[in-house]
């Protein structure tokens, strides 16, 4: 008995977590998938009816806005955060004496809650009293900056705040990447008289492809999960102009009492995440085994 116990302790230690993951991750996903195929409204029903919820979802103008916002927001956020992060990393890579302090400044927003970030930017972008009033006070009487309350522009305020929050993190990733490039190759290139910008574009940046990939994965993951920032900054408004799938799902689940819509929108979110993450994780795990 004790021998058996001794041999199986590792398995027994892992067992509770295994069960928990099976139930609370995979079981719950299965539950949501199941319910997304039913007529559930205020209460879940369990008779499968096919794809009616998905039909309703894609017929809904609100979901349409939320889903296309995800791509507008996601694209701008990822591209700009990556470019900015790369520029910052290259600037910081030039033997800057105060590098530590500057890095700390660029990265601190990452420690903040999205709700705090949203609150701060909501105040800065406040059309009546924020940036707009300040610039007008400098004498530019006609300056307008009303993106926060302009349905066509509000989504870009979320892009701005999200970039402010996350670009420092991209910088940290890229800086680590720049430092891991073989210094001998760079020295050799400099001895050959190749200009610095060519060293970057032809040698350093191409060798950082894996880092671009992981930055892309993290940022797209952040973009799809964006919920707090929208709630704090615009509340999804004006109207539902800045809804994202995450806020749509929450509204359906907890304020509209439409469980079927909540479940189907959550499933779509998961499919988007998995379409990006699964190939990445698969190749990561595969390359580990080789």
């Amino acid at each position, binding site marked *: 008995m004790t021998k058996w116990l*001794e041999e199986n302790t590792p398995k027994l230690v892992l067992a509770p977590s295994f069960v928990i993951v099976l139930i609370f991750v995979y079981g719950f996903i299965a539950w949501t998938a199941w319910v997304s195929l039913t007529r559930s409204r205020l209460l879940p029903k369990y008779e499968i009816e096919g794809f009616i919820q998905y039909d309703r979802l894609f017929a809904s103008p609100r979901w349409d806005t939320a889903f296309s916002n995800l791509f507008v927001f996601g694209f701008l956020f990822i591209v700009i955060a990556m470019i900015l992060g790369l520029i910052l990393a290259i600037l910081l890579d030039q033997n800057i004496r105060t590098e530590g302090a500057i890095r700390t400044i660029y990265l601190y927003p990452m420690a903040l809650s999205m*709700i705090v970030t949203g*609150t701060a930017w909501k105040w800065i972008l406040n059309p009546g009293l924020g940036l707009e009033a300040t610039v007008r006070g400098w004498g530019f009487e006609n300056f307008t900056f009303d993106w926060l309350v302009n349905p066509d522009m509000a989504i870009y305020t979320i892009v701005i705040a999200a970039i402010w929050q996350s670009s420092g993190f991209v910088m940290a990733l890229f800086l680590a990447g720049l430092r891991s490039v073989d210094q001998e190759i760079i020295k050799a290139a400099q001895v050959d008289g190749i200009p610095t910008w060519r060293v970057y574009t032809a040698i350093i940046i191409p060798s950082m492809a894996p880092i671009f990939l992981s930055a892309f994965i993290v940022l797209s993951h952040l973009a799809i999960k964006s919920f707090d920032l929208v709630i704090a900054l615009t509340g999804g408004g004006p109207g539902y102009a800045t809804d994202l799938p*995450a806020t749509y799902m929450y509204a359906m689940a907890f304020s509209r009492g439409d*469980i079927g819509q909540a479940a189907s929108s959550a499933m779509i979110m998961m499919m988007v995440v998995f379409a990006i993450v699964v190939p990445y*994780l698969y190749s990561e795990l595969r390359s580990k085994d080789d």
Partner: protein
Amino acid sequence: MTDMSYTSTRSGNSAGKIALRWGLYLMLGLFALFYLMPLFVMVTTSFKSLEEIRTGDLISLPREVTLDAWRTAWSGACTGIQCEGVRPFFWNSVQIAIPAVFISTLIGALNGYVVAQWRFKGANLFFALMLFGCFIPFQVVLLPMARMLGLMGLAGTIPGLIFVHVIYGLGFTTLFFRNYYVSIPSELTKAAKVDGAGFFRIFWSVFLPLSLPIIVVTVIWQFTQIWNDFLFGISFSQAGTQPVTVALNNIVNSTTGIKAYNVDMAAAIIAALPTLFVYVVAGKYFVRGLTAGSVKG
């Protein structure tokens, strides 16, 4: 002659270099301003009176520093019908974060130890299942979790939120410890086994003493995640058990009375202080957690 021309081109060159250097520092400085500006605005606004705010200069220093907004934010601002400021919710967050961080770190350490050092058939499958669990958008578990918490009698309670944070934190804590322990030679475990040490004994006297750096990274990561969480907080709490992020959002978006921007800013800073403090004190470990959490299986 040749000497002179040599020095002149050299000094011309270095003048160019100095200009370039200045440009570089200027750009770095401007970016620093971009990142610091919101924090600066938050701090100055929180010390201004409402009258001063209405004159509408975002970036001026307060003419008269007042602590009223801080006092209101801490103990008087309304979060819906309740008007007790963020104080009770701040303590809710503390009560949620501390046990959730402790439990998820402990279980993650044990899991990581097993997966990295006691390989058995199926351990890798377990790890892969956990890893995928790190990436799911939590929306996909919100509805069943709400029902489950109801069934368990934990709906709307602080233990319920601790439970949720522990469960969905396990993936990352296991990942952190597994990646750390995998780099420790397995000969160490084998030698300890030969000496007659059991599973827990080896963990306790061999691995735990080696684990301080990864414990710090994991604790910081988990604390930041849990303290800053909003989705679970708003979905699974009720009046009285909300974490500070939810309370902050309620203060900012409460529609009763006049908008007190200085109180909003003071409340936001209070909600941000714990994680900012951790970042300033242990930034190195914070960054390590971020990069470890983002890459590598």
